[in-house]
């Protein structure tokens, strides 16, 4: 599934009556199977963009579409991984992961099987019957990812999903996510604060700038194509192309303008 933004903008009025231009007219097309990373300082409208795509927020201007149909609300086809795990503490880890399938009327046996597969995938085998609040932050986040994957959405929207994790867990989940996106050809919209993470994960990196939020840089990441193969993480990170792109993006974030 692809998605398209057509002159989408978002304004809102604060409690003190001020009009905030959260997102300036933004047009964007993300083809099916693309992994897009979005970076930018706080308040640049990345989360607003994600909420519009998720269907949590109606844009005040323009149109957001998935394939050719207008986004009018949330749908299971657009899974969302939040910054916070948002697990439901009254359900076990397993029940949390199976919840989306339950909502959609999938039978118990199939729910169990799919749920288990996703739990295994994120490395939570053996924790199925734990209480969610007994898991560490990293495990909660993995459970959330398993919950979204179990639903098998075509588009996965992720809002700084690895922000609160330790370096080791983050790296592991990054590898898992890359593998999933390559194998299942998911379209992924991934917000992060880490430039390095964006260049490492994305097929394409968008840099956004605040007041009003807008896309100031739209760069494809073609390092793997240039080398003719998928480079392992460490090797990739040390290539001159990676370093150059990372610096270019970091500069753009810093200045808020596309480099000349």
């Amino acid at each position, binding site marked *: 599934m692809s998605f398209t933004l057509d002159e989408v903008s978002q304004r809102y009025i604060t409690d003190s009556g001020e009009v905030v231009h959260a997102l300036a007219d933004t047009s964007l097309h993300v083809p099916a199977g693309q992994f897009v990373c979005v970076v930018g300082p706080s308040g640049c409208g990345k989360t607003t963009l994600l909420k519009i795509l998720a269907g949590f927020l109606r844009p005040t201007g323009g149109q957001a579409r998935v394939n050719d149909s207008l986004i009018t609300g949330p749908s299971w086809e657009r899974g*969302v991984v939040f910054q916070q795990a948002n697990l439901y503490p009254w359900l076990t880890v397993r029940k949390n992961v199976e919840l989306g399938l339950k909502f959609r009327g999938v039978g118990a046996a199939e729910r169990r099987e799919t749920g288990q597969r996703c739990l295994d995938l994120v490395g939570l085998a053996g924790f199925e019957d734990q209480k969610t609040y007994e898991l560490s932050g990293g495990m909660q986040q993995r459970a959330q990812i398993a919950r979204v994957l179990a639903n098998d959405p075509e588009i996965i929207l992720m809002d700084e999903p690895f922000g609160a994790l330790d370096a080791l867990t983050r790296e592991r989940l990054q590898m898992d996510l890359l593998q999933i996106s390559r194998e299942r050809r998911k379209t992924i919209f991934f917000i992060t604060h880490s430039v390095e993470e964006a260049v490492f994960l994305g097929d394409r990196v968008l840099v956004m700038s605040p007041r009003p939020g807008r896309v100031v840089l739209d760069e494809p990441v073609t390092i793997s194509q240039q080398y003719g193969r998928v480079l392992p993480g460490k090797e990739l990170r040390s290539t001159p192309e990676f370093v150059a792109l990372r610096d270019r993006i970091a500069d753009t974030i810093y200045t808020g303008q596309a480099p000349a």
Partner: protein
Amino acid sequence: MTGPNQDEASVVPETDPLGQSLRVAADHRRSRRAQRVRKFGLSFAVLLIALGIWWLVTRFALVPALYLPSPAAVWDAFIQANTCRELDSGRSVCGEQNYYMWEHLIASMQRIAVGVGVAIALGPLVGFLMGSIEWLNTALEPYLNFLRSLPPLGYIGLLIVWFGIGNTSKYWLLFLAAFPPIVIATINGVRGVREDSIHAARSMGASRWQVGRYIVLPATLPEVIGGIRIAVGFAWTTVVAAELNAGIPGIGGLAYVSGQQLQTALTIACIIVIGLAAVALDALLKHLGTLLVPWYGRA
């Protein structure tokens, strides 16, 4: 405290991780127990001091016994209210006002059970609807606040005119006292459900109905239980008002009647029993709450 600890350490080698974690767990339990004992000791000391002052005041007759009977007199009144005694005329009398005190207490608890029970059945439902449907809340909230601020003594007379002097008017009074706190707590619970919790469910394919049933309902449970605890507390404070008229048997009625008849010791005994029963019931509800909502404060 260190004795058994050292024994365990000598039995279990330091390098054994299971033994170590067992020891940590045992230490943890011990320190928790010690903490509980300290807390209980503090509360108990306050009780002893209060009793001591009370005893001294009555011992030296600083206040006439009619106004403040001694602790011993209150104890005697309590025993008398729970036993049978021979009168001078040779007739045997049991309890007070023809009922043992525990029968009075049970009668009151039954009234509370009916009044609060109906409130527990209806309150969460009404609160859930008011919390989820904006116009319903706008329409009903002022009347709920109006009802909440009415003193039960103010309208018990009206309820007796409407429903008679028997139990029905008492049920109504207790229901009306217990209903608003449960509804208000439920509304607050529904409003307090985190937006992301609902968004997450919606983007997993939940219909509005499913969001209500599987997300909002369980998420609201802690507040509903809190509301029920407050409602039961209200019911106890209202039970005397409910039993002012034809309240025998009833612990509130007995407290009122004995006060009218200048049996001050019995009145004080009734008050203490009401207080203890209320505290015990609340502790039970609190325990039930932690069983039903083990995640409260942890997630």
